[in-house]
């Protein structure tokens, strides 16, 4: 409680709470980033932090959404609720950084602004599995941002608790969006059954907890009927423990009837702060104390002690023949009402041994401290286990490389068709396939920024870096210039030719060659779809991946039946299972699939 707004009203519990939170999140992210390359040497150093921050946000939101219902089931969890807003802000920060990393890796260096790329690269809103899962993540993040921005008590007081609470119930939609984001994104690419099981179990855990507790709340919300005189029979006064309350539901809302110091008073059950359940609190120092954040009210007047100004409605009660009778008509908030006097004060039930603690108190009671410590330790242990488990489960990094720091020179004939590439003469006695062909791309998500038309058919020296995977090799070109061909190779251009292998109907996936062959790991499947779109739209040649039952993967450069590029015509079908019927042509180590995109069939 405070009279003036402060950024954070620090106290010992909040410092401990935030300290554990930040250390746990920091250890998880550092561990994830550090351990992943130990488990998988091919882990993409740009991709690993994206997964670390994203998974941390998902785990933290799962924990946050578990706290509320756990508190309903066992009030000893309440200390976790006390500073839950800080957890929410940290989740939002993790999600924001996850988004920032995604923008700077999958969407940067393209032909449009990264934000435009994020929002416009995939518009398959009419498809379930091709749905732009990023939009679901953005939706969740926007909700979390609004919640984080309005998390301070300033907004709580000015919006009023019911409005603020309604706004912050958006977190449930955010969670649903986030589950969709994970299922339609990461879990489409990563098919490890344990990872899927972990996500399913966590989602079912959250939903089940809330369904169970909301069912219990529903039972408590049954209105008690009034007698002919308009009174509600609350029950025997000696069933109300000293300094505790009995809660009844009347006129559509819950009322807390407190017994204290030989008196009985009734107030609204909803704390003005966050509408916390005052009836589940205790009377401390003669004041009703909210179990959520410790806001206090005089039980007779419903007013907070000066200088605080919070007020809640009060109700008239009296005791007849040992039973408490309640008038369900509320008095205006803060209206003093004469307490009913208990005729035989010694008849009160002794309070149960339930411990009570609010965060601003200097020390936690032993029982609650032991209970919370054990559960937080178990949670931290689970986080440590996840640090070891998740990097292994995320192991979908392929053996591929982009040596972008290792600039080399390559000599060969530059050919413009079917995609810009250079033809390098293989040494030794080579027979039929005397050349290796390396497709040329530019920096970022673009085709080669060299004079392809002017250098077509000429012997050139290309300076650039290699991108390679499983026998496929490309060059990211910085510059190219014509050079004299060695006498031994000058005539070999005459032996260049293609070999038609026939017409085939093939099923596979369209990817951008640059990412797939090494720039991104993974460089295909749904999680990489938007980057694929950006790359192909920017001029990176699309290739079609086909595999056999043994796992052998063959890639085909895609052109139309006239041999022209198809980049702009395949964007809507990337990363999906597609069937293409076309003519296969072999150019040494390059295989080309010639088919018109309007004949492609999505499976």
């Amino acid at each position, binding site marked *: 409680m405070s009279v003036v707004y402060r950024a954070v009203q620090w106290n010992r519990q909040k410092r401990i709470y935030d300290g554990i939170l930040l250390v746990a999140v920091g250890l998880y992210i550092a561990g994830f980033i550090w351990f992943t390359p130990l488990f998988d040497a091919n882990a993409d150093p740009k991709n690993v932090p994206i997964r670390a921050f994203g998974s941390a946000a998902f785990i933290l939101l799962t924990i946050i959404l578990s706290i509320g219902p756990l508190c309903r089931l066992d009030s000893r969890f309440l200390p976790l609720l006390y500073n839950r807003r800080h957890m929410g802000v940290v989740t939002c920060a993790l999600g924001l950084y996850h988004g920032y990393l995604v923008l700077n890796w999958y969407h940067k260096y393209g032909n449009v602004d990264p934000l435009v790329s994020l929002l416009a690269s995939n518009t398959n809103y009419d498809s379930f599995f091709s749905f732009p899962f990023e939009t679901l993540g953005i939706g969740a993040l926007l909700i979390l941002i609004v919640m984080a921005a309005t998390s301070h008590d300033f907004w709580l007081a000015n919006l009023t608790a019911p409005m603020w609470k309604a706004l912050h119930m958006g977190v449930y939609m955010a969670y649903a969006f986030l589950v969709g984001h994970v299922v339609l994104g990461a879990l489409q690419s990563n098919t490890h059954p344990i990872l899927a099981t972990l996500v399913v179990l966590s989602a079912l855990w959250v939903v089940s907890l809330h369904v169970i507790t909301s069912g219990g709340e529903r039972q408590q919300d049954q209105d008690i009927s009034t007698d002919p005189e308009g009174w509600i029979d609350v029950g025997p006064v000696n069933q109300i423990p000293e300094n505790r309350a009995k809660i009844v539901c009347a006129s559509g809302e819950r009322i807390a009837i407190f017994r204290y110091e030989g008196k009985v008073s009734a107030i609204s059950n909803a704390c003005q702060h966050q509408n916390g359940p005052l009836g589940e609190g205790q009377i401390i120092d003669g004041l009703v104390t909210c179990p959520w954040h410790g806001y206090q009210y005089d039980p007779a007047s419903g007013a907070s002690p000066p200088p605080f100004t919070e007020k809640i409605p009060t109700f008239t009660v009296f005791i007849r023949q040992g039973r408490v009778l309640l008038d369900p008509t509320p008095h205006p908030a803060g209206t003093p009402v004469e307490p009913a006097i208990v005729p035989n004060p010694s008849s009160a039930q002794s309070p149960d041994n339930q411990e009570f603690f609010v965060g601003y108190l200097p020390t936690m009671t032993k029982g609650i401290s032991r209970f919370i410590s054990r559960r937080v330790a178990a949670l931290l242990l689970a986080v440590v286990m996840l640090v070891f488990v998740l990097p292994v489960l995320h192991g979908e990094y392929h053996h591929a490389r982009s040596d972008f720091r290792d600039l080399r020179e390559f000599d060969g004939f530059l050919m413009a068709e079917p995609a810009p590439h250079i033809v390098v003469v293989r040494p030794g006695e080579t027979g039929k396939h005397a050349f290796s062909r*390396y497709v040329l791309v530019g920096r970022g998500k673009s085709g080669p920024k060299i004079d392809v038309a002017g250098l077509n058919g000429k012997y050139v020296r290309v300076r650039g870096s290699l991108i390679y995977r499983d026998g496929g090799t490309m060059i990211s070109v910085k510059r190219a210039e014509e050079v004299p061909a060695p006498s031994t190779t000058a005539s070999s251009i005459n032996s260049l030719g293609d070999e038609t292998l026939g017409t085939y109907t093939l099923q596979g996936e369209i990817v951008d060659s640059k990412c797939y062959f090494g720039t991104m790991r993974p460089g295909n499947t749904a999680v990489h779809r938007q980057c694929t779109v950006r790359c192909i739209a920017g001029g990176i040649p699309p290739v079609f991946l086909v595999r056999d039952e043994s796992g052998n993967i063959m890639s085909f450069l895609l052109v139309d039946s006239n041999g022209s590029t198809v980049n702009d015509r395949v964007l809507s079908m990337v990363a999906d299972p597609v069937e293409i019927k076309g003519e296969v042509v072999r150019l040494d180590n390059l295989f080309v699939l010639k088919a018109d995109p309007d004949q492609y069939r999505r499976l």
Partner: protein
Amino acid sequence: MIRPRRLLHRQMFLLLAFLVPALLFVGLAFRPDIPPVSKPDLTLLAQAGFASNIPDNLTRVQAGEQSFDIGLVRNSSTTSSLIIRSVDPLLKPDLLVYWVPESIQDNSLPDNAILLGELMGTSFRHMTLPATETTEQGSLIIYSLAHQDVFTSFLIPSLSRARKGNHTS
């Protein structure tokens, strides 16, 4: 919470209790999968050098830090094919497999090296050896054309031949 918010919470979770499991079930159980190449089209992979029938009598060869599985298939009285794969993925660009009749003394590609084919990841590759009896001896050189260096080389081990035609070419 006040009662309308409790009601809203209950309604939201009744919706989510249906929506989230349904999303998880459909999203995971019906994940789209790309079917493998159908049997008639396997000839295309064979033309690209992928071996489809792997002989049982493979020999594992250790060459430096790399291991290769190698087998021989006799095609006719004068020709044999080599089945080879790298046991672990090789992070070198454009790896070509050459044969030379002698053992390799230095880390360069001899002029008389004969190109057999290309390695691709850990896939079994089928390469026709030159039509002489002596090619079943000699050395194999794994050469990275893009790096223009010899990645590794090793003597062809004494290999027992699989039956004629036990491969696809």
